[in-house]
């Protein structure tokens, strides 16, 4: 009955893994850009902009990623915009990533001691110059490890894209499990696939934390 060899299964799963990696990378790159924009709004001295950024962050941190994807996917099609599942997944994950990264990075900016603000203000730097030359260089160094750590969350988060029909690793696994009646083996391999992507990232993040957490 079972026409699939282990080789076939692995081949199909690797195909899915590839899409998981592409989706993660897309969400991460675009989410970093979005995160920087939200961060800029969040740190602005205009209450309206701060409120906008706060609301965005609260909404995306306070709702499940799955609902966010549903709303992007079904909401847009309800509004007459038909978008393919991969685009909906990329968009949803980008928004989700933006919100989290903005908050992670804001924490890093806040962790810079007030003395650095005062020291640079006393040297006649304006707010933009303080950010650009004093605060952000230190905050970004601090942010590298938690940012890479969050990438692990993004990789695992891409699995929910399977529910709106995007064929990445989890969806591939689901289809294979139905066809082979070997769910334990298949999902074990799927989990191993995620682990393969995430574990090196975790290790790298931990390594960065050790080497970069010194003052400079």
């Amino acid at each position, binding site marked *: 009955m079972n026409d699939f060899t282990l080789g076939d299964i692995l081949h199909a799963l690797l195909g899915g893994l590839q899409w998981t990696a592409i989706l993660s990378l897309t969400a991460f790159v675009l989410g970093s850009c979005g995160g920087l924009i939200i961060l800029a709004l969040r740190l602005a001295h205009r209450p309206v902009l701060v409120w906008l950024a706060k609301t965005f962050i609260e909404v995306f941190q306070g709702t499940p990623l799955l609902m966010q994807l549903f709303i992007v996917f079904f909401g847009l099609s309800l509004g007459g915009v038909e978008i393919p599942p991969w685009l909906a997944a990329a968009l949803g994950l980008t928004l989700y990533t933006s919100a989290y990264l903005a908050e992670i990075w804001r924490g890093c900016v806040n962790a810079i001691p007030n*003395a650095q603000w005062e*020291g640079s*203000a*006393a040297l006649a730097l304006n707010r933009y110059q303080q950010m650009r*030359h004093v605060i952000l260089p230190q905050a970004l160094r601090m942010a590298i490890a938690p940012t890479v750590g969050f990438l692990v969350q993004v990789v695992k988060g891409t699995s929910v894209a399977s529910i709106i029909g995007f064929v990445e690793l989890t969806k591939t696994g689901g289809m294979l499990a139905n066809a082979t009646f070997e769910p334990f083996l298949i999902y074990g391999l799927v989990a191993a696939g995620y682990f393969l992507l995430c574990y090196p990232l975790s290790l790298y993040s931990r390594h960065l934390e050790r080497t970069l957490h010194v003052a400079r």
Partner: protein
Amino acid sequence: MSLVNITGLHKHYGPNHVLKGVDLTVKQGDVVTLIGRSGSGKSTLLRTINGLESFDEGSITLAGQTIGSRDAKTLQQLRLQVGMVFQQFNLFPHLTVGENIMMSPRVVKGESPHVLREEAHALLAKVGLADKFDAWPDQLSGGQQQRVAIARALAMKPQVLLCDEITSALDPELVNEVLAVVRQLAQEGMTLIMVTHEMRFARDVSNHVVFMHQGKIHEAGHPSDLFSRPQTPELQNFVSAVM
């Protein structure tokens, strides 16, 4: 001609009235020391002079210009004239010593890197750290870091230098190397306004000592008079406690 002119300065922190009408005139080349118990308002007064603290009433003029508004442009203009050295040095840990000194003149004034590099080397030589241009702040002792902070403030060529308890965070054996630099600046005619707990230093170096008590200038004068013949019981107590 007076360089800094403070009249009727009041400041509140919530319910606390921390400055209660302060008048102070500082002439070019003056070395003014603010002394007093903690909480007397001396650091707050110092920090209003470069706009790190706002004030509620009164006025500060610097070289004839009144510092009224707190918009970013006015504050930046003010800070171009007034340098400051802090208790905790506040060096930028992500920049080398040389970059710490050159960054602000480059970014704010757009001066050429070539000129700045020479000036930075000269300033480091002046504070006795000629060989530390490429060092990182965390490789230096507290005394060395504070001397870099002084060089960094001088790189902006300020008209006045504010020193806020600049030796209070230092180990005792490092205090003198920093005071020696300040003493030299005073001898060269730099206008200095300092908050310090080093009374001997205040007596030797300054030409005007201001004793602050409960948010007011309680007594002020030349150090030789003030320290040897304090007029008020508050200053008598203070002097006998610290000297």
